[in-house]
């Protein structure tokens, strides 16, 4: 039994249309306590303008292939290129920003994350992706004041795993975990 269900395989066999959905989730305020989603492309929704110029690819590997040669463990980075037709990404002299769809809050792109899902018919395939935006690069349009319609290259990496795997152990790494009991560390009443 594989990852695909019988219905999903049947849908692939029968040539059901494939739908890809990219969304950018941006914080609604500086606390990043909640996020709004903004669909940048839904290939199954004709009401949404097609903006993804290059859908990119993701590579996956695994470690510990062999006792003699373990290989390596790499994060599946994901880069897409899209047309910035709605102008939500825009650079300033110091940085770039992303304007959320429902609020006036403007976040650094690095504060946003992107999701990418594939459907065959109504069936969501198991290649779900959620990635933090690492960088946004803009096509040079000759007009630095307007990046509307410029091509944006958005580079992402898996949101949670990248933040874990790229960390280093240090004294604070485990000192701030809320589920550990630190109250009893200080002895002899001399806190």
């Amino acid at each position, binding site marked *: *039994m*594989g*990852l*695909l269900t019988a219905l999903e*395989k049947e849908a*692939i066999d029968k040539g059901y249309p*494939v739908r*890809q959905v990219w969304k950018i989730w941006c914080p609604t305020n500086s606390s990043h306590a909640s996020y709004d989603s903004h669909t940048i492309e839904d290939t199954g929704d004709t009401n949404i303008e097609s903006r993804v110029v*290059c*859908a*990119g*690819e*993701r*590579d*996956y*590997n*695994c*470690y*510990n*292939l*062999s*006792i*003699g*040669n*373990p290989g390596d*463990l*790499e994060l*599946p980075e994901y880069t897409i290129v899209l047309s910035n037709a709605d102008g939500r990404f825009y650079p300033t002299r110091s940085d770039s920003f992303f304007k959320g769809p429902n609020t006036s809050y403007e976040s650094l792109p690095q504060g946003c994350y992107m999701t*990418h899902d*594939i459907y065959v018919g109504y069936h969501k*395939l*198991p*290649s*779900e*992706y*959620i*990635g933090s935006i690492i960088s946004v690069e803009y096509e040079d349009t000759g007009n630095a004041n307007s990046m509307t319609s410029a091509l944006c290259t958005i580079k992402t990496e*898996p*949101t*949670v*795993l990248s933040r*874990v*795997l*790229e*960390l*280093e*152990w240090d*004294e604070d*790494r*485990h*000192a701030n975990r809320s*589920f*550990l*009991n*630190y109250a*009893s*560390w200080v*002895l*002899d009443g*001399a806190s």
Partner: protein
Amino acid sequence: MAMPSSWWSLNASASWRSGCRFKNDWSGADVYDGPSINRVICYDGDGIWQGVDSSMTIDSQWGAFHWVRQNGNLAGTSIPALGVAIGQSSQKHYPVYEETFSEGDIFPQVKASDGSHYSQRLLGFSSSDGTEPSDDTYYTVYYKPDYSGIEGQDTGDDSYCHLYHSQPPVYYGYPAQVISAIVMEAIDIDDYSLTVSDFIDTSSFDDSYDAQCDDTNGSQYGYPRDHPSLVAHAKYGEPIVDTLKRVSRHAWEYLGIGINTKLVYRHRSADAVAVVNSDHIIGNVNFSYMDDFLYNKIHMRMGVGRLIYNWDETPSDGPAPNLDGSGFAGGDTLTEDVSEDTSLQLLRSSTISESVTKYGERIVPGTEQDVDRALRFRTGDRRRTPPPSMKPRKQQPIQFLSHPYFNDIKEYQPCQKTSKYIEQLENESEPLRSAEITQDLYGLDYDVGHVVTVDGFTGQGDSWTAVCTNKSIDFNNLTVTSTLVERVG
């Protein structure tokens, strides 16, 4: 059987980490959870500084953490050397300035809680009555760790001098437990309101856990039930990904990022999860053989020494460790001389002549000749010079019998059945087929680390089993390219 249901709950009580723990066993004191400890070593009562504990000795249970020690009655000890140690270690974390020390007169400058620095007398306190120090009562402080220091604290009428100590966490359990515990502990999911199952493929860890801890359930390792297999020390400054890779080398499972962007830990001998046939393959299939990937010659005997240890042979005088770590006897369980047990002295030979012809011998570390030489040395036959790596001590581990990642007993205590380990080594000598195939979206039917059945490829036999080691999904043309390597073992 799988991980305990509470294992994957970050919000559960601390018991979810059963089997994985980091604890400091401060000899003479209670056991504390946590990475650091602050302990008052002396205080100023009514203007007279007093030591609060005249016999504080602090060692770690795990053997490698002899970080901090305070001893009394060290008159005549070479104090200047200790003073240098104080200065060196403290500079890395706490700015305790090195002074010119002399016997009986140590006044290092310590950092107060308000950030100021002042001199604190560390040596020569009376432990009992607060009187001026007597000549035969000394308190010396040894510093070895990177993160240790002395903190002074002025709390008004009373001032305290703290001995501060911190150490990286220690994880104790099966590899599946240790890896998942590290990831869960390091993560801060609040930012994204996620749950563990959003970033960890928990079912893959459960399967691997079953294989690693249950000898009756298809284990490739032979770890008996409820006997955790390794002690893993984190290291300050080491990327967490490197720690995970180190731990994963103690088992044969595949660690990776799955196509659902979750951390997966695939059991190597899982049943085939999908069938790959020619129906959905796009383009050519690129076959190759991977004999340059392998050891092609194995001729070895194992079971000598204590580095590859069989938990089934737990000495009768040492308690078997329980899942929660209780009853762990540390090094005591590793001193068994298994050379007397002929059932553990296994001789296996395997040579792939074609590969040897092509690449030369790629022999595994540790040959029968090495073992014989070591055995003679252990048993008193010293007709030949022992290998340079061995010192003339009977209990010296014979390290070249195992692979490097099993050797560092300061880092881990490998506890794998020797017979299983040798079987794995033999697998490494088998020539493998590799195929790179490009499929339509049917390629999403299996993930990296999954074992698949390859069926119906022209000219490549009727059917063979393989593991998917790499996957690339192109979202422009919706193709999935997978690398399949023949599975052995």
